[in-house]
């Protein structure tokens, strides 16, 4: 079994209300100096066999179809080493 990781982030031009709430909360807790937080999603896909380009392409397609909404989100796909 191998693992492919898909990270999904809201596009930078879109407001992330959750991240904004976290900035305020961090400041309240004394973690000052944080000017921005953006909250994303991480998906870990366990796949059969080794991760080659074909597997990555297939996961990229899955991410584009379901895991992310390309209208509002960017995503990256990578094999997890180790």
């Amino acid at each position: 079994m191998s693992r492919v990781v898909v990270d999904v982030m809201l596009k930078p031009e879109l407001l992330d209300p959750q991240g904004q709430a976290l900035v305020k909360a961090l400041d309240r807790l004394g973690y000052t100096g944080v000017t921005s937080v953006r909250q994303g999603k991480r998906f870990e896909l366990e796949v059969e066999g080794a991760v080659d380009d074909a597997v990555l392409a297939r996961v990229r397609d899955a991410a584009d179809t379901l895991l992310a909404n390309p209208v509002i989100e960017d995503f990256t796909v990578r094999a997890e080493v180790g």
Partner: protein
Amino acid sequence: MPARVGVVTFPGSLDDADARRAVRLADAEPVRLWHADDDLRGVDAVVLPGGFSYGDYLRCGAIARYAPVMTRLIDGASRGLPVLGICNGFQVLCEAHLLPGALVRNDHQHFVCRDQRLRIESTDTAWTSAYEPGQEIVVPLKNGEGGFVADAATLDRLEGERLVVARYLEVNPNGSARDIAGVRNEAGNVVGLMPHPEHAVEELTGPSTDGLPFFTSVLRSLVGAA
């Protein structure tokens, strides 16, 4: 024979009964459709109701968009079947790319529930022809992820091609871009709306009966098409 308007129930739908009631009050026959069925039962139009389809685990409407009934609906919509998505239904239609843009978490992060004033901006759709252009209405609104967003080019196109169906007045309740409360496709058969017209069809239970014309409009459009 009255027109038959299907209302899809997803696991988590909660406004499907209200939508069927609104259809009945508009003198059409409501038809229950189940999300897992690969069949639209020959209906003349479809309402995707509000609620929380599949719990919206991933993004609102993202998984529901791949329900078997949606395959038929997307096919029908491309051939002119009138489809109205309300709240979660609007989110499902955006996820299905039948409508542009997307709905994101409210900018103030709170669930909002209020009687909302709207202006009907587009009356040449299957679902708004019974309104006067520019008519102001009040219908309930309740959502946590109701902020309509799209890139600037898409927003400009929506404005330029007059694809904005309804706009928020007085208060923008969720941070929607350009106060957009609802949009349509180019053909005008597919409309998505974040507020809930199906909750404003009777004096006893709603703030007005301003929502009923959404449901009488579609009957007019069906008669016109027949």
